[in-house]
């Protein structure tokens, strides 16, 4: 299963990179979203995908899945959400003020190279 997940994560990283290299600001943010999904899944996969109960002691199971990567991913999800939300608002403001979402046109002003 880990092999399959590694391939999937590779695909996610590939698409994220391709989107980040495009011209549209919105696509770049979509790319970052895919990138964080990839990273979160990578954390989960590297923690091991062994069988076991959910990390709840009430289950009284003989073995549990590793709780630590889950805590790390939870933190990462919240942080990436905060950043994505902020980015999106920045992009929205940029649309409002500058009237474009084309990265090639967002190059500062003439003579300020």
């Amino acid at each position, binding site marked *: *299963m880990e092999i399959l997940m590694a391939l999937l994560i590779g695909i*996610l990283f590939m*698409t994220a990179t391709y989107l980040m290299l495009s011209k549209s600001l919105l696509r770049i943010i979509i790319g970052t979203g895919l990138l964080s999904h990839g990273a979160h899944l990578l954390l989960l996969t590297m923690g091991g995908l062994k069988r076991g109960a959910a990390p709840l002691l009430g289950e009284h199971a003989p073995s549990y899945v590793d*709780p630590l990567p889950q805590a790390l991913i939870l933190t990462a999800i*919240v942080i990436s959400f*905060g950043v994505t939300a902020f980015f999106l608002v*920045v992009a929205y403001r940029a649309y409002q003020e500058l009237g474009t979402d084309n990265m090639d046109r967002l190059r500062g002003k003439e003579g300020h190279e």
Partner: protein
Amino acid sequence: MSLLHLAVLSPLLLAILIPFLHKYFKNIHTGWFLLPLPAVLFAYFLQFISTTSHGGTVMETVAWISSLGINFTLKVDGLGLLFALLITGIGALVVLYSIYYLNPDKEKLNTFYVYLLLFMGAMLGVVLSDNLIVLYTFWELTSFSSFLLIGYWNHRERSRYGAQKSMLITVFGGLSMLGGILMLYIITGTFSISETIQMSNEVVNHPLFTATLILFLLGAFTKSAQFPFHIWLPDAMEAPTPVSAYLHSATMVKAGIYLVARMTPVFAHSGTWVWLVAGVGVLTLFWGSFSAVKQTDLKAILAFSTVSQLGMIMSLLGAGAAALHYGTIEDGYYIVAVTAAVFHLINHATFKGSLFMVTGIIDHETGTRDIRKLGGLMNFMPITFTLAIIGTFSMAGIPPFNGFLSKEMFFTGMLRVAEMDFFNMDTWGILFPIIAWSASVFTFLYSMMYVFKTFTGKYQPEKLEKKPHEAPIGMLISPVILASLVIIFGIFPNVLSHNIISPAMGSILPSLLENGEGFDVHISHWHGPTAELFMTIGVIAFGLLLYKFMPKWAGIYSKLPSRMSFNRFYDRGLELLELTSKNITKSYMTGFIRTYLVYIFSFFILALASTLIFKNAFQLDLSDVAPIRFFEVVLVLIMAVSAITILFAKSRLTSIILLGAVGYTVALFFVLFRAPDLALTQLVIETVSVALFLLAFYHLPQIRRNEERIRFRATNALISIAVGAIVTMIALSAHSNKTFGSISEYYVENTYKKAGGENMVNVILVDFRGFDTMFEIAVLGIAALGIFAMIKLRLTRGRELDENK
């Protein structure tokens, strides 16, 4: 803190007071407050003669950075004292001269004297420091204060150009020297010059020796305006004339000479040193005197003459270093070169100082320094004329002035070089006396030009801005004193030999002396009909001939120098450097974020791929993998398909919805892999994110709403495929390389026992690793505040967005 330290630092301390004195005593010329200091210092340093003339030294240490071996150690020996006397003595005369030269109503005297004091203190520090780092500190301070003084009239473009040029060249040399100092420290383990000299044998045999030597010489050559670094000196003539007299003839340009003399006991056992110092010196000598002849500005003539004379001293020091080859004073056939170097050092300071002051007087009284406009001033300025005669005749090497004596000894030294049978001198060594002799002819020529084109010939009043008349008496005092010294040292050279020259030589060639012994220096006018005498006669005869027929042959100058000018090389080089760096920066700083991302990703790919390949890091171990189940495969396929479809989506709406699909699939993965909290959070957050994306999408400007697919680009595709492949490979290798188990057993065991909870993930978040959570809350808080501020703050609306405009 000894009196000696106070003496070295006193100019710097007085520099602090000068602005106040200038402000509160407006009626008195600020220079008068300065004048006592160098005079008192001169008297103070004179006392040391009784010590040094017997080979003694005075050493005083104040701890500075002892842990690094850097202490403010001052040492007065023969060489240091000679320079200290020159600095303070000529310093006093220059200050006196500047009082009459600078107009207190027109010039900013406070800055001028602050800079001059900074320079004086720095120079004293250079020549008296026994610690190389302290020496370097003062060395850079001389470069810096010289920069300020050259650019004193900073409203003139030429002044700023000259100041920048001298700064660039001398600081380049200074930094090279710092490299040399550090290498020397690596070899010897000490910054102390005295201790380094003791270890000279180890230095010479060390593999770093040649590099150290060259770095030191770069420092010395740039400071002392040696070929080809001499180009800054003529441009430094934009400084006020007292500065030119002080810095660019008598003191700062001799700092390099001082360094060479000081380091001679360390480096001079090698042939490289002898060849480099003597060779560059003699080349500078010739080039300087050759170039001086074509100048029409009096200060430019003197500048090139200074270059040439410095080359002469340098070549003598190089030739004299050969004396160390034998190691005893009896075989010291070559010592005469060092005697000549020290003697000419003094002579040059006296006559060149007075000549600069004479130039300043001419400039001051006529309004020009151009020899084409000057002429026939003899009758108007008889005293100045006399001073000029003394100075130039001494410079040309005519008896009975002191220049004659040092020139004779110079020829002797050069003839000895040709006779050397070691360091391969027998091959090209014969060139030394030949070049030296022809350079002396040119020296004679420009000396005669200087005095006769200015003071004799046709008087041209229509070309002069002022009606010339004799200078005020105050302005004449300093050059008169210097010119008298020229005559005194010329007629009675031996007043110097025992007290000054011999101890200075003792510092340059210490290994030749037994304990308590001193060099027996005796300079005589007449030593029979020797080769040197005939060479001098030849110089005068040939020089007169060239002077007489000058209009006939001066045409060669218009052909040669423009092609062979190092100024052009410097200017072009600087221009090219700026242009090239601008072009290089422009070529990769495109301003497109895509380009920078390409750089970042490419580096990521290259660094990781090469590590994977060259370290043989890729591994695949299938023993520890979980079994594959149907559900998971379906989810993997859904996710892969939706992620890839985003790339081909025509509209942005499709891509946002596909991103949402990926997010919800991730949540389903969390369900499958037994992570309920993650699944919850992921579902909620994905929903909010998609809503936000839709918001941003909705507000797209109308104009550019042409919905199009991403244009395909091969580089982008290649880079992204490589990134994906590398991440997969690293994930696989990392998974196959687990070396130890998880620490999670601890959490499983203690979540209830110690923390009183049953949900392990939540307990880790708020109990075991609560700090993470606290700052994650801070991140959310900051993001919320930031979003609020972004939307609410509208400071730029209706105004220019660019604050700089």
